[in-house]
């Protein structure tokens, strides 16, 4: 009980500095774990988000823009492609499913996407998962001014089945750009935790022929979402559209294109990680400074312990262990910081992109970071421990007579 008692009493005696130091460690530990988890989990979530499609066909341009526009509903369209191009790829023997989409309008900031009912009837947006309509809902009729809303969009727009709304021109909401057309909501999709939750879906024809749109583009589509019969088909189509052709772009495979984006911004991760490491070092330094600064006040106690028979190594161990305990307290509190931050960041990502990151994932960083922090703090305790180790007993206890 000697060592735990010495550590406990010392922590109690220096409760304020213990609290502040453990707090800074909690912040460092929480930040490190959050940065790491957000980085890895968002990368995983984004690269695995493909809405159930292997490839996207669009106008000649950036593959990334095409994927962001058609799968994540984030970017502007890189241009249109003719309906004949859609029909051609749909008939291609290597293609299992081809779903056309058209974009260009919004409902008070939420993207309006024109498509075909087949998307909701046959496509699995994730393995084994098809789109499901909420109670009383039905898919829109291709020729009617009807709509189906994603769960998040419906919630934020306050829409329920049977409500009507006006679309607005453009991808960004401008109240002056209201279309006169009136659409009726026929269904609300159950949450899918994909970008589709942030979209209001209408018939392809509805978006193509929206009043005010260019009549010459009334049959064009913005992109075609493609499911392939085999992976080798993707390379064949890639050759056909991207290397031999010069009019259209095939973005394939979807996940690799997003992974490429993450690798391009990996420097940003590295900067974040560097900041987190620095914060961890500063926290360990604060343990060192906090214990070291209290050494003068502790020296008498340490000398008394030595006079009672405590060995130098016991005193050394007690100070290092105390630093480790401060680290452990901080690491435990760090989990609270971590969960708080992660939930906040995950919510922002979900609101902004519709992508849901797994906050319950158990990655090695969740034990490596706290253990590393405890080790770092123990290391920070070595310097004051050496000072404690060298405490001159006779001189500290009483003036020599």
């Amino acid at each position, binding site marked *: *009980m*000697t060592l735990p*008692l*010495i550590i406990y*009493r*010392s922590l*109690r*005696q220096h409760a304020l500095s213990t609290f502040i130091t453990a707090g800074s460690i909690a912040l460092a530990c929480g930040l490190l774990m959050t940065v790491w988890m957000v980085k890895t989990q968002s990368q995983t979530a984004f690269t695995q988000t493909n809405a159930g499609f292997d490839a996207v066909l669009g106008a000649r341009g950036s593959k990334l823009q095409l994927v962001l526009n058609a799968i994540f509903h984030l970017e502007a369209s890189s241009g249109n492609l003719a309906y004949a191009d859609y029909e051609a790829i749909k008939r291609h023997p290597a293609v299992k499913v081809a779903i056309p989409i058209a974009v260009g309008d919004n409902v008070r900031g939420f993207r309006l996407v024109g498509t075909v009912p087949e998307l909701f009837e046959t496509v699995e947006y994730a393995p084994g998962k098809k789109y499901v309509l909420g109670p009383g809902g039905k898919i829109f009729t291709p020729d009617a001014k009807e709509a189906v809303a994603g769960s998040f969009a419906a919630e934020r727009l306050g829409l329920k089945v049977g409500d009507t709304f006006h679309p607005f021109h453009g991808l960004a909401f401008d109240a002056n750009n209201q279309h006169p057309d009136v659409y009726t909501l026929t269904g609300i999709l159950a949450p899918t935790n994909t970008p589709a939750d942030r979209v209001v879906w209408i018939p392809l024809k509805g978006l193509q022929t929206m009043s005010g749109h260019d009549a010459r583009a009334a049959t064009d589509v913005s992109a075609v979402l493609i499911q392939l019969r085999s992976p080798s088909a993707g390379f064949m189509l890639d050759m056909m559209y991207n290397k031999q052709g010069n009019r259209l772009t095939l973005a394939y495979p979807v996940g690799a294109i997003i992974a490429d984006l993450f690798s391009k911004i990996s420097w940003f991760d590295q900067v974040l990680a560097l900041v987190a490491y620095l914060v961890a070092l500063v926290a360990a330094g604060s343990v060192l400074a906090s214990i070291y600064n209290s050494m003068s006040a502790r020296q*008498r*106690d340490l000398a*008394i*312990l*030595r*006079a*009672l*028979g*405590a*060995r*130098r*190594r*016991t005193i050394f161990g007690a100070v290092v262990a105390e630093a480790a305990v401060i680290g452990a307290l901080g690491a435990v509190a760090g989990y609270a910081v971590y969960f708080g931050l992660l939930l906040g960041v995950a919510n922002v990502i979900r609101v902004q992109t519709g992508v849901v990151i797994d906050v319950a994932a158990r990655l090695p960083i969740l034990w490596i970071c706290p253990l590393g922090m405890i080790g770092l703090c123990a290391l920070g305790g070595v310097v004051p421990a050496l000072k404690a180790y060298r405490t001159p*007993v*006779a001189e500290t*206890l*009483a003036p*020599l*007579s």
Partner: protein
Amino acid sequence: MLAVTDLKKSFVSPDGERVDIVSVPSFALAPGEQVALRGESGSGKTTFLHMIAGILAADSGRVALDCAEMTSLSEARRDRLRAEKLGYIFQTFNLLQGYTVLENVVLGMSFGPRGADKAHAKEVLERMGLGHRLDHFPRQLSTGQQQRVAVARALANRPKLVLADEPTGNLDRKHAGEALKLIREVCHEEGAALLLVSHDELVLGQFEARKDFAEINQAMKGAPR
């Protein structure tokens, strides 16, 4: 029990000169014997006790404690020997202020070979009349009570030798007399030898065996008092 031979210690003064503080050719104490050493301030008596306790290394000479030669041991062995065989009562008590009365005594025991024996620590504190103050902190006690905690801590480990450095220096006459009686009684009960240093004639007067440290310590012979 205790045999000191040719024990010497000097320090370097601020002007760079080496000054002899302790030079004791011979000093001995039998088991259970109680001896008082008379010594003025600055006579080197605390340094002498520190060297006997092994918390200060001597320049030369030997200290043999219960057949173990303290001066030839490594520091770690000296620490162990001190924890096992010695009890030290300081003038300023040197209680650990952040620890309760019971913890002060238990911690003192924990470095010895018998380990922390809470029941015995309580027993000793009750013997000192502090059974109702076990969970108090030293600052919550009177000076006399703090002195009794210091005595309990020194005796709880059943030492062979108790060193007491001006143990009543911070007490009034009434409490000093009581404390001294208690120390002597408990040492007698436990069979521990007692070496007490003081400059207070009333304290020294209570001992049958009294010695003048100035006569034992050759370094101070001829020095102004």
